[in-house]
């Protein structure tokens, strides 16, 4: 049998032109929501990692001061480093050079060598063992006992709420993906019902000829599949184009603020699955809607 040949002229319906466009739109929305899921997952993981594994220790400035103060600042730095290195759970202690501090400040102060003209604090970047982190409060107290003006900045305080927000957005995005699939079901169900109503006489004739409900349902399934086969890839292509544009745009932004959002092969596989899943949902929905609609015939 010719694919779809069963007497019902569904391809001539107005919905035949509308359904692919609607499904393309839904796949596009699902694609964007899925991208948000992956982006928020990556951001939350990155920030979570920073939250659990990093500290910054600030010590009084060493530049722009007298000779004695410079010596005192160096002593303070040595003491702090000594305490940090002696603390179990501290995996890396890195005193930031003036060049590194200048680079960190570049987004706000430009490329001028701020460290030479401003009294900036000395910074120590500290990495912690995520599996067995030290007691940060005890560590801060020990450093402040040795260097009274020292400030231990625990990244947890700042990042905690951001990580929570990213996770909440990720959950919300999953919900949007689910909603687009529900939208796909409702759209196909509505189009199928319209088709059943519009072709009632043809369907009744097929019924009289002894057509089983599945014979009629197959025609609506084929109609839904064709619409999804056209609309799904179009929606996916537009979504992927938008993702690439966003990635390119984010490339211009300082990576200290937003981490790399490079998609993994698994992420791409999820994107490819979107039109496949949409087609499957469309076909199953068309079948169920048709069988339920035909139930009224004796």
């Amino acid at each position, binding site marked *: *049998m*010719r694919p779809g*040949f069963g*007497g019902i*002229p569904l391809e001539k319906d107005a919905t035949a032109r509308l359904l692919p466009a609607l499904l393309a739109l839904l796949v596009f929305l699902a694609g964007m929501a899925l991208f948000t899921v992956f982006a928020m997952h990556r951001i939350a993981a990155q920030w979570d990692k920073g939250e659990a594994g990093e500290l910054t220790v600030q010590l009084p400035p060493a530049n722009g001061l007298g000779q004695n103060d410079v010596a005192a600042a160096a002593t303070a730095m040595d003491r702090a480093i000594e305490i940090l290195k002696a603390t179990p759970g501290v995996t890396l202690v890195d005193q930031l050079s003036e060049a590194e501090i200048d680079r960190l400040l570049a987004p706000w102060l430009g490329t001028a060598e701020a460290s030479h003209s401003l009294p900036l604090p000395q910074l120590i970047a500290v990495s912690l063992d995520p599996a067995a982190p030290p007691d940060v409060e005890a560590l801060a107290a020990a450093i402040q006992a040795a260097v009274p003006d020292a400030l231990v900045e625990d990244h947890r305080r700042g990042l905690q709420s951001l990580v929570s927000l990213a996770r909440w957005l990720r959950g919300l995005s999953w919900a949007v993906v689910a909603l687009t699939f529900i939208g796909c079901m409702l759209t196909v169900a509505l189009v199928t019902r319209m088709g059943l109503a519009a072709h009632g006489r043809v369907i009744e004739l097929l*019924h009289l*000829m*002894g*057509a089983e409900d599945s014979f009629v349902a197959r025609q609506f399934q084929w109609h839904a599949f064709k619409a999804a086969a056209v609309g799904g890839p179009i929606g996916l292509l537009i979504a992927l184009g938008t993702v690439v544009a966003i990635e390119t745009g984010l490339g211009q932004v300082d990576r200290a603020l937003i981490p790399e959002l490079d998609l993994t092969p698994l992420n791409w596989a999820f994107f490819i699955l979107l039109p496949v899943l949409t087609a499957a949902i469309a076909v199953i929905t068309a079948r169920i809607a048709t069988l339920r609609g035909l139930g009224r015939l*004796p």
Partner: protein
Amino acid sequence: MIRFDNVSLRYGRGPEVLSDLTFRFEPGSFHFIEGESGAGKSSLIRALSLTLPVSAGDVTLLGRDVAKLSRHERALLRRKFGIVFQDFRLLDHLSVLDNVLLPLIVCGQPERAARQDAADLLSWIGLGAVLDALPPTLSGGEQQRVAVARAVIGKPSLLLADEPTGNLDWRLAQRLLHLFEELNKMGTTVVVASHDKQLLSRFPYPVLHLGRNGDDATTTPAEV
């Protein structure tokens, strides 16, 4: 065999269209159903084609008690029916060939073989030149022949015709009933509903008269 025992039929909560109807048609017989407009001829044809459930009584079609049939079995039983409608009910978007092909496709026959059978039948009834034409481009007589071809392509055990001569002139109407006679001679049970007493009187087959007040009776043509 077709048997109706004390069958009543009504639409929704409306009045009874058929009331306490009892009759029996033997396999391979030819019967007319006659009555005035509104007497229930079309409703009876619909009940016979399993598209209208009866509201009371027992119906046996081709030896099967229809009340005991599953949905699947009802569909299979319908495949043994051929139905001709007064308004032909051809599908205007399909070619003549596809219209006649459709019952075979519904029955699951491979399209290639079914296509050849349909083309052969249409050629036999003189429509070989219009296989690819759409029904609206045909004359009334040609459309009527297509409708008959569609009804008989599956070699039905029961042929039901609802006012099949309503849109035809006298000569074509007689030719159509002669065609039904030929089918009947090959073993098909034929049931024709018509209001045309004069036409029916020309054929020697029993007539089931449907009255407006449930006074139904089977009579011979001479008594109609």
